[in-house]
């Protein structure tokens, strides 16, 4: 099975990085989260309810829709904040990429550890621009809002192709497909990573960190 890979590119001002990343990551996670599974006897299960929340951005003319889960929101915000800090520390040419990877765990026999097999990767390339005055910032607010709208449409287009999705797991397998650590919703297993492009444009990752969401113990 080939991993599906999608790339989104945005150019934003420094203070818009957080909200732009949150908007796109939350839009993807909205589509890749279900309600909590409750397994019953005879192999059947019922699914909890996913609520949604509108969030107005402060620095972009945009309203994002996210899953109503404060826990999930905290995790994503933390990842985005780290990415933004790394971008800020990299120097004046702020270019970087944050990736949201959905994967499945495949149990291997002892002594080999479980494999993580990605099935969908979203890469968001960010280019941070500096603006000279308030007028340019105002225009940027609107432009970035429109651009994010286009990206949301792109995301929805990809998702609605209904390409590969992991099969709904049995109770014993659910941890290999879904992140069951949250109280209220259940996203597919995912991890967020980022890399910063240095000013020469080479993609050598000068700071590469993994934010591991599952309990991948090596």
């Amino acid at each position, binding site marked *: 099975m080939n991993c599906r890979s999608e790339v989104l590119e945005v150019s934003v001002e420094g203070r818009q990085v957080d909200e732009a990343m949150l908007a796109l990551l939350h839009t993807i996670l909205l589509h890749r989260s279900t309600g*909590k599974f409750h397994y019953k006897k005879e192999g059947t299960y019922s699914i909890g*309810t996913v609520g*949604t929340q509108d969030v107005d951005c402060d620095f972009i003319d945009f309203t994002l*829709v996210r899953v109503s889960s404060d826990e999930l929101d905290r995790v994503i915000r933390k990842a985005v904040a780290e990415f933004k800090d790394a971008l800020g520390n990299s120097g004046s040419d702020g270019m970087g990429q944050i990736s949201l990877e959905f994967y499945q765990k495949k149990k291997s026999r002892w002594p080999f550890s479980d494999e993580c097999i990605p099935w969908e990767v979203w890469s968001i390339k960010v280019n941070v621009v500096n603006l000279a005055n308030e007028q340019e910032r105002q225009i940027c607010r609107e432009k970035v809002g429109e651009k994010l709208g286009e990206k949301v449409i792109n995301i*929805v287009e990809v998702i609605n192709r209904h390409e590969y999705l992991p099969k709904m797991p049995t109770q014993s397998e659910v941890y290999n497909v879904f992140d069951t650590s949250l109280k209220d*919703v259940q996203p597919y297993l995912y991890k967020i990573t980022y890399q910063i492009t240095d000013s020469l444009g080479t993609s050598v990752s000068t700071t590469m960190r993994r934010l591991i969401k599952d309990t991948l113990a090596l």
Partner: protein
Amino acid sequence: MDSDLSSQDRKDLDKFIKFFALKTVQIIVQARLGEKISTCSSSSPTGSDWFNLAIKDIPEVTHESKKALAGQLPGIGRSMCVEISLKTSEGDSMELETWCLEMNEKCDKDIKVSYTVYNRLSLLLKSLLAITRVTPAYKLSRKQGHDYVILYRIYFGDVQLTGLGEGFQSVRVGVVGTPIGTITLSCAYRTNLALMSSRQFERTGPIMGIIIDHFVERPFTNMAHMHPCSYRTPGEDEGGTYAGIEDSQEVCTTSFSTSPPSQMVVPGKEGGVPQVPAQPNHGTAAEHCRIPSCPNGQSPQPGEMHSDVLCMCGTQVTTTSLDLPFAAFTPRANDLEVNDPMVHPPPSPAPSSPLQGSLHSNSSSHSGGQPQDDFVMVDFKPAFSKDDLLPMDLGTFYREFQNPPQLASLSIDVSAQSMAEDLDSLPEKLAIYEKNIDEFDAFVDTLQ
């Protein structure tokens, strides 16, 4: 085509399509109410949340959707459309977007109805949630209220896109294949909002002026063309279960109970702003806000979206006139009042405007007998004023008390005297403060 589908699957599929259509309309209409939507996730399945999504049902919207469906389902050749349009306070309207739920003949016979189709429909609703915040009408709907309102209309049959103007864009929300056809959800939206922008430019005058223009003629005559059933105000929640509506309920109740024309028309009414609109207006208003006929007797809660813009503007005028009771003294109000046939002309020029005359209507009988003589200043006795204490007219009163009185300590005589005294007493005061220095320090510590 249907022979491969078991009867149970067919029943399930029909149910899914029906509820999908209802939820689609709810999402679209709620996204155009002008406020942020928020629902809670629940880990325990309640059994009543279709597609495992928390989407509240506004009863009025459900009612309209079911009426439009009329027992049928969206199918091949029978598209369900939700048209969103904008209506300005001047009565201009413009279609903004049309959301279409269509079905074509391309079938996916192998797909599992109760599982795959259901989950894909759920995914499609999530996509709809995201896309409804992205089309241009969303921003417009968030700013609705004073100048315009957003309306919706549900219809069945052929998709009509001609009202969207030239160069409209289309966005496909998604598709779901089923054994009886492929469901497609899309949106066509207007890109040319020229009408909107030019109107906004013209709207530079004060609200008072605009509203007075409104009510020179019967305010609701232009509503007669609109099919009352089609244009519905969402958010009228009979049970009051929709949290987002509650705040706006008060606004809308207020707007229905007051009306500018009565305040100018009938001097015989009691002083102050009359609460009940004049009869013809009230009747027509009731027709267009007819959701008042809620079984439990609750007043209408149209939320931010109205079929009746004028009611919202009515609130504005009432508030404005209450906030600026002397707005009657502004020349602009006078000019507009002059041509207003509904307003009784003043018997003499002394009361400076008929609006003033109606605001203090008890006294109009006094002024009724004044001589028809220009340039004669007449003592106008305002209602409830006491002659013995302050024998003055409103104008004098206003001029006298327009500015706050000068502080006594700032008046020159007093300060000249006290300055010398202050200087003399300074050393004494300093000595006292130095003695109590510990107290002051303790006080400062408590502040930190």
